[in-house]
């Protein structure tokens, strides 16, 4: 069987289309495991994984923890609040102390872009990036593409629009890389202040009008407005954003085709997407969450086989 070409999953940018296919094929098998009466396999029983979260998370953290437990790994959890990071310990010292307790893999989320890359140059353990600042969130992009593949059979040739706060979104960047590597066409859509200046250089289409974007696409991935990362005003008010870029059922019904709605969560209902659109039959938001566990099992399993 093929192996992953990398020892760490730091970003989608570093992996090949073959790696993504291998992860998908492995995830298919794990999805099957998750539908059994006993949803657990003993593959990683001699592995210890530390979930090191320097930033808040609900889905990703639960999903990783569940994936690790389904693979029978031993799991330790670390969150920076209430830890010695508050006393001034550096990232490298913190992680080295965790590794001194014989940990084999690190799943890390950090507010600084490139933090896992920095770590990978200094430590032996396999690292999985669970989100680094506004840079990448590879497992989210993998599960998004996997969900599109599940819905349509393949990703190649599909038209995907990413709507919202592209500037602050690590999900957007990882999604662009993943979708392009799999042969999909990608468009970004949002207020001009929330689109990175040179985004076109990644080979994506840019659209400022949300209706035109929706008419073009097969799949719309709606992102959250990340107010916590915005140090200045990028648009006049949330209400105005909703008026111009919010997705609701009325807008979806007025299109001449049925598109698929995705959202990486957490949803701000009534801001970027209305409840009737998020809960409609066109939405695969909860399928994304379900697939997240299988994708993370596949990533951990494949990385663990490369030591």
């Amino acid at each position, binding site marked *: *069987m093929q*192996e992953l070409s990398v020892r760490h999953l730091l970003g989608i940018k570093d992996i090949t289309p073959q790696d993504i296919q291998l992860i998908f094929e492995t995830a298919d*098998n794990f999805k*099957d495991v998750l539908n059994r009466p*006993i949803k657990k396999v003993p593959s990683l029983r001699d592995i210890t994984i530390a979930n090191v979260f320097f930033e808040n998370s609900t889905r990703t953290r639960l999903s990783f923890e569940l994936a690790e437990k389904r693979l029978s790994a031993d799991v330790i959890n670390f969150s920076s609040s209430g830890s010695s990071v508050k006393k001034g310990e550096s990232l490298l010292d913190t992680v080295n102390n965790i590794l001194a307790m014989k940990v084999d893999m690190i799943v890390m989320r950090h507010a600084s872009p490139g933090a896992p890359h920095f770590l990978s140059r200094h430590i032996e353990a396999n690292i999985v990036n669970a989100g680094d600042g506004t840079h990448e969130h590879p497992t989210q992009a993998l599960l998004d593409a996997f969900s599109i593949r599940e819905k349509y059979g393949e990703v190649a040739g599909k038209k995907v629009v990413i709507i919202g706060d592209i500037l602050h979104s690590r999900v957007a960047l990882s999604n662009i890389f993943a979708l392009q590597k799999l042969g999909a066409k990608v468009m970004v859509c949002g207020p001009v202040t929330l689109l990175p200046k040179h985004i076109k250089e990644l080979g994506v289409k840019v659209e400022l009008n949300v209706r035109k974007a929706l008419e073009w696409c097969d799949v719309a991935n709606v992102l959250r407005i990340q107010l916590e990362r915005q140090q200045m005003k990028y648009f006049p008010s949330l209400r105005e954003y909703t008026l111009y870029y919010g997705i609701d059922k009325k807008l979806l019904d007025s299109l001449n085709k049925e598109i698929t709605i995705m959202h990486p969560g957490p949803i701000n209902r009534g801001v970027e997407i209305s409840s009737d659109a998020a809960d409609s039959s066109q939405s695969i938001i909860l399928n994304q969450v379900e697939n997240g566990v299988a994708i993370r099992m596949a990533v951990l399993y494949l990385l*663990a086989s490369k030591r």
Partner: protein
Amino acid sequence: MQKRLIVNHQLLDIMVLRLCHQLIENHGDFSGSVILGLQPRGKFVAQRIQQTLASILGKQVPTGFLDTTFHRDDFRRREVPLAANATKIDFLIEGRKVILVDDVLYTGRSVRAALDAMISFGRPASVELLVLIDRLHTRHLPVQPNYVGLSVNSLQSQRVLVEWQNEETAQDNIWLITKTEV
């Protein structure tokens, strides 16, 4: 590399037919019995057994495929990881008499993994093992088959290959392969 034919397609047909009659002796009309082929190569044996039983009994015995990759004990000990295959079991195992089917029994580790994997689907009433080729004196674990096509004495350096007729292979054959030092 030397290849020696140990079972040709006619012998293989007779072998499968005999194994089916042995199964019928113990399982009668196969009510409450199911067949599980071990992925990847036991799948073909299981399909052949199912077809042959169908021609004798006139009914399809429930047959599934079980993948053991995630239950193996040599994960991270191999140079290259094994590819996982699909598990397809669309019936209940709970309370059934399960017949595990594989092509070659060698160290017994696959069978141990299969027992482990199978338990995830329920508690069978009993489990039996059917193999086409039993390689004698090579076991690492106390595993013995209930039904054997042929017992073979072989060296550790040798390999047994069961070929099934398809686009590339004209006939069913079982080969004993010896690697020669160059």
